[in-house]
């Protein structure tokens, strides 16, 4: 595993950890006072209140950000360990890739739920979307030697991925974006 990927794990995992932590704190504040308006609820579209209140926010019976706190902590720790000289064996890299694959599938399910079911964008959740995709992508490229051809266009794939999601977000909240212009 190279140092660039290790730094991605540290920074991406750190951003994800911060976002999951913030969402957990908002959730606790909301449980304490049901009338609490989360700091990230700015208007009908940019709102984490409606997202946190949805059924999808507790996909496994407990608030999703708890998964994020556990998962992103492992990602950060792995990155730091690699920077400190740890050479992850193959089984470790496969396991990390499996974890990020679960994360990326889960995130896309949440994107679909946010855009087409809940009709709201939660800023902290968007941070998690943004970091989970490259964590999965670069962990995949690092783990599977057969993907050498894709490695040559690594950032083009990533940017295309982001562009498709940006397009979907734009389309789903079209009226909101045009009202901002």
């Amino acid at each position, binding site marked *: 595993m190279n140092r660039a990927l290790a730094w991605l794990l540290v920074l991406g995992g750190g951003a994800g950890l911060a976002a999951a932590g913030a969402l957990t704190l908002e959730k606790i504040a909301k449980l304490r006072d049901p009338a609490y308006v989360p700091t990230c609820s700015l208007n009908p579209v940019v709102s984490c209140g409606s997202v946190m209140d949805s059924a999808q926010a507790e996909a496994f019976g407990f608030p999703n950000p708890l998964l994020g706190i556990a998962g992103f902590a492992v990602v950060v720790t792995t990155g730091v360990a690699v920077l400190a000289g740890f050479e992850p064996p193959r089984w470790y890299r496969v396991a990390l890739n499996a974890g990020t694959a679960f994360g990326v599938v889960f995130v896309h399910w949440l994107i679909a739920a946010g855009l087409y079911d809940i009709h709201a964008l939660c800023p902290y959740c968007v941070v998690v979307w943004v970091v989970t995709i490259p964590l999965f992508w670069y962990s995949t490229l690092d783990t599977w030697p057969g993907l050498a051809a894709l490695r040559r*266009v690594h950032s*083009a794939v990533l940017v295309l991925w982001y562009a498709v999601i940006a397009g979907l977000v734009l389309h789903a909240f079209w009226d909101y974006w*045009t*009202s901002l212009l």
Partner: protein
Amino acid sequence: MSRTARANKRNPVTARRGPSLNAVLTGVVVLVAVLVIGGVLVLDRSGGAGGASSGTLVPPDAHTLSKAEGDQVTLVEFLDFQCPACASYYTGVTKKLEQDYRGRITFVTRNFPLEGHPLAVPAARAAEAAGKQGKYAEMYHALYDNFDTWATDGRSTSADTARATAKFEEFATAAGLDLERFRADSASAEVQAVIDRDVADGTALGVDSTPTFFLDGEEFSAGGSTIADAERELRARIDAALAG
């Protein structure tokens, strides 16, 4: 620019080397994405008459009771002309706000006739029809100022369409409207479409009761239980928005 030029001149064999191909493709994807997204946004905006560009909160043809330069502070109310709470808010809150903040805030009204108010849609049609002759505000005021004469039978909600229609035509005449045109517009599909759009926008914004207010896009729910509390709080928010 120079990077693309170099890549084009390069020998096709060496051009397959990783970084440059990746960089070029990345640049192309970013460029195409920005052009497509930006282009669609700009095109949509310039073709505004189509209605697709209408904001969910404030469509281009929205009725404004007060208009501020540059729309610095915008208050949107989703209302039902036959809802008693809306009439109370009108008397206790919005009529005063409209006068006190005239020209300083943009105050937009949207239709949200509720089921269970049989005259709410006819009243909304009358207001929209008056709007087609430039007298929306006059009809809006007449409907709420004379709420008791058409919307209620004693204490209960009225369903007397004939009485209400006669009243609406009386208001229209008083406002100096062309009565024939007013009748035709009231019955038109075009006016109904405006009401349907307002209801659809309100539903999309999460409106489920009236009156529902949005101050600069943020839903305002009165913390206090009385109309006076609501007025005080709304004024405070507006003053803060004007100051900020």
